[in-house]
């Protein structure tokens, strides 16, 4: 005999969430938080010249908005992925090892922001965010989601599909933020990589379904994020701005549509 607890889901088919009908109205946990990713290769690998002005802009608005900073990986993560691929290791191992680099980067940013209330947090400290914000702190954490060894094998290649863009988007989604901001070294999304094709056409605004339909060989943001956006309950917009251009971040945080906006629909 099964000793079951009666509940609305005691008979639900939990193996297959797509089959049931649910009247699910989740509440936003912390909708005012600005979830911001600082790019790894695009920003942090450029060092002081790129990083200091960005942190100055963020510190200047820290009284206005609760800021949650998440860091990307960059060239050291690429080096790990390249060596691990050469060794023919599984995707889950690459994802677990790739996680070390954004954590280093988060620690670097925390050291620079310490005098302004920067605190390094780990995924496990997520529930302490309200405390940090109440104290006027700027929490800094890795952008990488904690999937690690449980990252699924991709159809092609062994680079983990969920990296720091995905983690940042999912962070914004679970907190109930409407927009996630990605600070990179390009003005936003282009039809081709502008570093390789200077004439590539800029896209200021596009919806996730349109972007998927265009089937571009390269996009400025991890592809899974565009898929997640389609199903999101809270985070309905991604904004990508150029952190090398002074003022872009400040304007984006004020709600201006600078850079590229990718919308859910």
């Amino acid at each position: 005999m099964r000793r079951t607890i009666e509940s609305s889901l005691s008979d639900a088919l939990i193996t297959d969430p797509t089959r049931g009908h649910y009247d699910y109205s989740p509440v936003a946990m912390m909708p005012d938080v600005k979830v911001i990713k600082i790019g790894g290769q695009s920003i942090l690998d450029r060092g002081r010249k790129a990083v200091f002005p960005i942190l100055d802009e963020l510190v200047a608005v820290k009284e206005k908005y609760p800021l949650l900073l998440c860091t990307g990986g960059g060239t050291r993560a690429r080096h790990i992925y390249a060596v691990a691929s050469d060794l023919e290791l599984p995707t889950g191992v690459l994802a677990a090892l790739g996680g070390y680099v954004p954590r280093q980067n988060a620690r670097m940013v925390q050291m620079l922001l310490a005098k302004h209330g920067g605190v390094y947090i780990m995924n496990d400290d997520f529930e302490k965010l309200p405390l940090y914000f109440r104290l006027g702190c700027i929490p800094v954490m890795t952008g990488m989601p904690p999937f690690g060894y449980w990252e699924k094998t991709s159809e092609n290649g062994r680079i983990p599909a969920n990296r720091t863009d995905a983690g940042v988007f999912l962070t914004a989604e679970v907190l109930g933020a409407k927009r996630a901001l990605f600070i990179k070294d390009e003005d936003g999304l282009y039809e081709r990589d502008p570093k390789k094709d200077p004439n590539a056409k800029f896209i200021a605004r596009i919806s996730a379904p349109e972007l998927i339909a265009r089937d571009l060989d390269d996009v400025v943001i991890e592809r899974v994020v565009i898929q997640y956006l389609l199903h999101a309950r809270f985070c309905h917009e991604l904004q990508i701005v150029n952190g090398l251009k002074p003022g872009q971040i400040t304007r984006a945080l004020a709600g201006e549509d600078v850079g590229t906006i990718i919308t859910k629909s």
Partner: protein
Amino acid sequence: MSTLVQSDGRTHITSSLMRESLVDRRVIAKTHSEREVQIMPDVLLIGIGGQSIFDRGKEALLPLVDELAKARGTQKLVIGVGGGTRVRHTVSVAYDLGLPLGGIAQLVGAMEEANAVFLNALLAKHGSMVMPREHFWELPLYLESKMIPITISIPPYHFWEPPAGDSPLPVHGSDFGLFQYAEVLGMKRIIFVKDEDGLYEKDPKRHDNPKFIAKITLKELLANMPEELILDRMLFQAWEHSRHVTEVQIVNGLKPGMLTAALAGERVGTVITKTKES
């Protein structure tokens, strides 16, 4: 030897992925190869159902403990446990409260921890131990000393569980979690111990005389998925692109000897294979 390159204002380390966009399909394709290291290919993973076995208590669990105790030392085993009815209750309360999906995913693993301890309390004297989910690199030590590590099954997606629209149920469930555990370590076989003989075309708890499926390939299954699945749909989706797991077997833990037979390689219950068996 790696050197630093700084010509474009960024500092790069030379590697085959230097300066590249990791989103570019052509770059990703360069990291593909036919082979992949099998980290622990000779380990067998056993998943023990929460609602199907643990929630039945002594009558279901004690005979399985005997079978596991006898199997210890004959091959390298790792056990993953499900959460059962307490997981459903957790999700149902969280759903009613309107917690975000990631918040729900964060909560459910705790219910499996209890089942890992329950099983270990019964099996410890025969040589078992509760092992933190991701302590993979200690496994050789445990297995060489003929211990049976017991772990929770749910994958650590936590607050970062991807949104799923209208559903409050995380799609990355325990069966998927165990699958991925086996896959990343290069294991070949997983045995799920449930309270049904295996896979049916319809849920035998809800329908009379549904057709039993003794043997099927993943491809056949994906082409014609039963509406009511005994294992997570996500497991089958992840299996499609995976490289190591060749076989998933489902056996009835309420029938004495079925687990032992499966451990001995017998085709009892349902056997789902990645490719057609020759």
